[in-house]
């Protein structure tokens, strides 16, 4: 049976440019360099690609772990899927379409280090989400908030990092969407919060068939829920495959990671 891919990237390259020529000038003034006897121009900067001719695909209806060291391009990849970043080269297709805000009604994206609106209470946040996110299941969200010990009357600004992470997760998982992108959902979060987050991810898988891509450093925590794994390094794909197959061939996903990146 041919595998269906919800997300496909073909030969995608992306380099981050400096913001303005003033930034460039400032940097050069500091270094006081001259190139070939003339003042430096923007083209002299070697652009370090965040993604380098990357070709990779994510199977539909499966949970894929997107793993790799810092700067590998994982966040950039996810951002591209929701149209926050545009590629310099290559094609990206999400359910057969180019990424754009127009398709984001079907995609739930948890931004890396994303905060929520501090002045809202938890209850207000869920009510607000119901209005602005299409297909947001408010009942489910409330149940999840309850199971995650979130006080509906608590203001978001008073929440600890772990509790805010739980709220952010609910804002993604309570949406009836086909694709869920979680960028570092476990980062800097306490153990109990991590458990609760994992539990809720497992629950949401039973709900509707959906494609989930999780980008994380906490491999040990999360690897048991991956069905598919993709390893990225310096903007390129180093290894990809079915999690159980990799376990049969090489051992735990964590050990595979260590082997690749040590």
């Amino acid at each position, binding site marked *: 049976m041919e595998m269906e891919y919800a997300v496909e990237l073909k030969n995608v390259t992306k380099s981050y440019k400096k913001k303005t020529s003033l930034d460039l000038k400032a940097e050069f003034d500091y270094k006081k360099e001259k190139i070939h006897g003339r003042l430096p121009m923007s083209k002299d900067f070697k652009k370090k690609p965040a993604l380098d001719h990357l070709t990779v695909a994510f199977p539909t209806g499966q949970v894929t772990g997107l793993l790799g060291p810092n700067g590998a391009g994982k966040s950039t990849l996810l951002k591209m899927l929701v149209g926050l970043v545009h590629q310099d080269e290559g094609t990206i297709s999400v359910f057969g379409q180019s990424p754009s805000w127009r398709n984001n009604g079907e995609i739930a994206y948890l931004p890396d280090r994303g905060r929520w609106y501090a002045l809202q209470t938890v209850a207000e946040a869920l009510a607000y989400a119901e209005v602005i996110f299409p297909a947001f299941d408010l009942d489910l969200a409330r149940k999840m908030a309850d199971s995650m010990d979130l006080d509906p009357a608590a203001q978001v600004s008073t929440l600890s990092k772990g509790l805010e992470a739980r709220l952010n997760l609910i804002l993604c998982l309570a949406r009836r969407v086909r694709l869920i992108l979680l960028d570092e959902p476990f980062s800097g979060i306490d153990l109990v919060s991590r458990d609760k987050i994992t539990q809720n991810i*497992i629950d949401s*898988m039973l709900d509707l068939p959906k494609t989930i891509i999780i980008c994380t450093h906490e491999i040990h925590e999360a690897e*048991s829920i991956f*069905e598919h794994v993709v390893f990225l390094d310096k903007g390129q794909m180093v290894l990809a495959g079915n999690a*159980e197959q990799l*376990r049969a061939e090489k051992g735990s*996903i964590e050990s595979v990671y260590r082997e690749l990146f040590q």
Partner: protein
Amino acid sequence: MTINEETLNLRLDLSKPLYEQILHQIRYAMARKDLELGAKLPSVRELAQQLRVNPNTVMRAYQELNRDELIETRRGQGTFITTKPQKIQHIRDNLATEAINSFIDTMQELGMSRQTALSLLEEGKW
């Protein structure tokens, strides 16, 4: 009798395929009579939560057990161990054979003859 976490005490080793481990450990628990005939198994959701694994992995294991007629799903009620003792006996025999073959492999690797192995077996802690 409903099986709770204490009776179905599965431990997973992340360095080996999880699906196989779940399958093997449930079969083993059945063979050792830890699970009684006709007992109720945890739902896919419950087991996935307990083990913190992908529910699809649990589902695959349950499907395989279903195919072997070791468990049966009753609509609206849940998943139950088979009531046929011969099925359980069957696994027991298979697992025993596996253990024996594994024993024989180890003995051969150590260079022991069949005679030596048998006498060691007799003297073992029965």
